[in-house]
């Protein structure tokens, strides 16, 4: 059938192997694309509303529960926003340990996505379960690496899902020398697995599809690959201080739907591993640069499916970066007088004043903003979070609209699979985005 009079009706309800609930809707009538959309259908949870009148010292505990996968990322963003509002400056040691925690978060989340959510497509399986038989060593490696990331998180902050000891002001428990040794040893134990992960990535096949867009993420003037702090920057040469995050994200309601989208210099922008790679690849750890080179992966890359490969490169970066900091802390020693007991600041360890604080932190899926306005007692008056997946939805839809005509001659199942793979490549985290929902109602 020629594309000119092709009819196509694809509805993927609850895209599987993504975090949260999302639907794809494609409707083609006589070759005309009537609909090509990605809908978020998660039940709203009203986090910003629920935060009101709670203590700013509870914000981390509550917002970490926005998402189990991204709980360390939300924790770090929430703390940064709270400390910015309170005018508190964390110590150098605290910042180093927070960077390690963020590296752990990237490793854990990226590995889950690469192995369990994305790789089955590239290996032609509906999930990792059949891979237990066909690719047993790969599955075991994935679970082993995931467990290691989990174990180092347990040592550093009590657990990975909803970390315990990382709070406003610093840490309630600081790693002992034996803890630092244990984390270093655990990491060294998966060095070979790391190498094999890069080797696996070189074998994965991704569809050839290109759409240049604006790539947005943290930028900085120093030499470190910016994840925990920096300004907001884009590949179109824009730059904003984090307090001006609303100017960078420009949330708007699209006339096609009741959704709130984001954009900056073009119709849409992308955040996440590929965006960071395109912005900051020259600042990656030398071993991550080598991995990118071995994979033939160069910035700028305009294929969104390559987001998974960018995640592999970041896995190498975060692994080496965390090891460097851990070794440095082991050598210099940790100052345990910085250990804190905060609660809701009953003892007034941290001076409280009214204020407005903004956090901009790179988390696995892209740049995350938290914003808190607090009163003189430290109670939250207003809260706002802008989540990476929310920022990507607009870009996913523009990708889908360019992709569909390019593959319209293929069978319906192939089209459906490529669409699902595209959505999955962004590693969308819908639990996160649901608090600020972009549901679109068809019909």
């Amino acid at each position: 059938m020629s594309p000119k009079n092709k009819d196509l009706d694809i509805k993927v309800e609850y895209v599987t192997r993504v975090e949260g609930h999302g639907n794809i809707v494609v409707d083609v009538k006589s070759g005309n694309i009537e609909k090509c959309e990605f809908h978020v259908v998660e039940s709203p949870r009203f986090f910003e509303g629920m935060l009101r009148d709670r203590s700013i010292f509870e914000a981390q505990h509550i917002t970490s529960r926005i998402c189990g996968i991204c709980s360390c990322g939300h924790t770090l963003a929430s703390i940064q926003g709270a400390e910015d509002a309170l005018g508190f400056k964390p110590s150098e040691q605290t910042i180093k340990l927070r960077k390690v925690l963020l590296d752990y978060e990237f490793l854990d989340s990226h590995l889950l996505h690469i192995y369990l959510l994305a790789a089955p497509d590239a290996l032609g399986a509906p999930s990792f379960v059949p891979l237990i038989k066909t690719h047993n060593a790969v599955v075991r490696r994935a679970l082993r690496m995931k467990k290691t990331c989990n174990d180092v998180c347990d040592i550093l902050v009590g657990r990975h899902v909803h970390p315990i000891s990382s709070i406003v002001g610093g840490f309630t428990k600081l790693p002992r020398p034996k803890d630092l040794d244990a984390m270093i040893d655990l990491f060294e134990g998966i060095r070979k697995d790391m190498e094999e992960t890069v080797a696996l990535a070189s074998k994965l096949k991704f569809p050839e599809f290109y759409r240049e867009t604006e790539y947005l993420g943290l930028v900085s003037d120093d030499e470190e690959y910016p994840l925990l702090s920096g300004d907001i920057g884009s590949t179109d040469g824009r730059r904003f201080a984090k307090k001006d995050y609303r100017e960078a994200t420009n949330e708007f309601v699209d006339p096609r739907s009741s959704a709130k989208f984001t954009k900056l210099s073009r119709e849409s922008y992308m955040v996440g591993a590929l965006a960071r790679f395109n912005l900051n690849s020259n600042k990656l750890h030398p071993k991550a640069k080598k991995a990118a080179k071995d994979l033939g992966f160069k910035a700028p890359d305009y294929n969104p499916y390559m987001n998974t490969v960018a995640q592999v490169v970041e896995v190498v970066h975060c692994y080496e970066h965390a090891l460097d900091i851990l070794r440095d802390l082991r050598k210099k020693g940790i100052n345990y007088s910085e250990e804190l007991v905060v609660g809701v600041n009953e003892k007034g360890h941290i001076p409280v004043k009214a204020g407005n604080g903004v956090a901009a932190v790179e988390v696995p899926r892209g740049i995350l903003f938290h914003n808190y306005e607090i009163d003189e007692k430290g109670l939250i008056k207003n809260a706002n979070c802008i989540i990476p997946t929310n920022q990507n939805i607009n870009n996913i839809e523009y990708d889908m609209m360019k992709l569909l005509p390019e593959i319209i001659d293929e069978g319906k199942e192939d089209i459906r699979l490529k669409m699902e793979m595209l959505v999955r490549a962004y590693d969308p985290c819908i639990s996160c985005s649901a608090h600020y929902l972009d549901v679109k109602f068809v019909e």
Partner: protein
Amino acid sequence: MPKNEKKISNKPKVAFFDFACCEGCQLQIANMGEDLLDLLGVIDVVEFREVMSEKWDKDYDVAMIEGSITDHHAEERIKKIRSRSKVLIAYGSCATLGGVNGMKNSFELDEIRKYVYGAGYTYFDSTPTKAVDQVVKVDYYVHGCPVYLPEVVEVLKCALRGIPYSVPDKPVCSECKLNENGCLYEKGVVCLGPWTKAGCNSWCPNNGNICYGCRGLVKNPAKNAAKNIIEKYRLDPVLMKNKFDMYNKAKEATNEPKK
């Protein structure tokens, strides 16, 4: 026989479902690492949307439910799942208590909907947060935010053998003392350990933080000891209520679980 039809094994069919939640509890299960493969050796996971594309259209031996019931669609969906399941396990605070989602119930429903979604708030259906047992019968509970993995394994073992599991009904302090943690009250902060069900091995106090009450309240708190704490540390009732509400607000509506 159609060529794609798989051979059905005799292993129990277990399905995982999520409602309004952060999906962190299913992640805890994924965090079992290679032990997960042993678990998969004794059960057949027939649905698990986050990590599988496969679907199942028959009955479930065990349904694992994560998340709270927060809209009309969810209410219908959980009833359907219940009708297809021999055993239903609610796991994680959102499912067992309403959890952090319950804080929504402290606000006028339409007010909080408007605050977050603005004028278009009616597009997003929302009902007061309910724990799973406020809608359907629950056979087993695994409390916690997130769930504590050793307890998940214990409850699964009981469920698969058809024997009961009793959630510990003593306070977190009982475990905290065994772990030789200094009392947080002595350090000047308010901890919900004395009122909260144990079973997590005092996970948060072990790491220097307070107990937030995520496992729900003990049925019979040691009243005198609790009274002593309240008097000794001059606890502010408003502050205490606020702290309990973080996880336990939804359970205020009714204390009687569905039979």
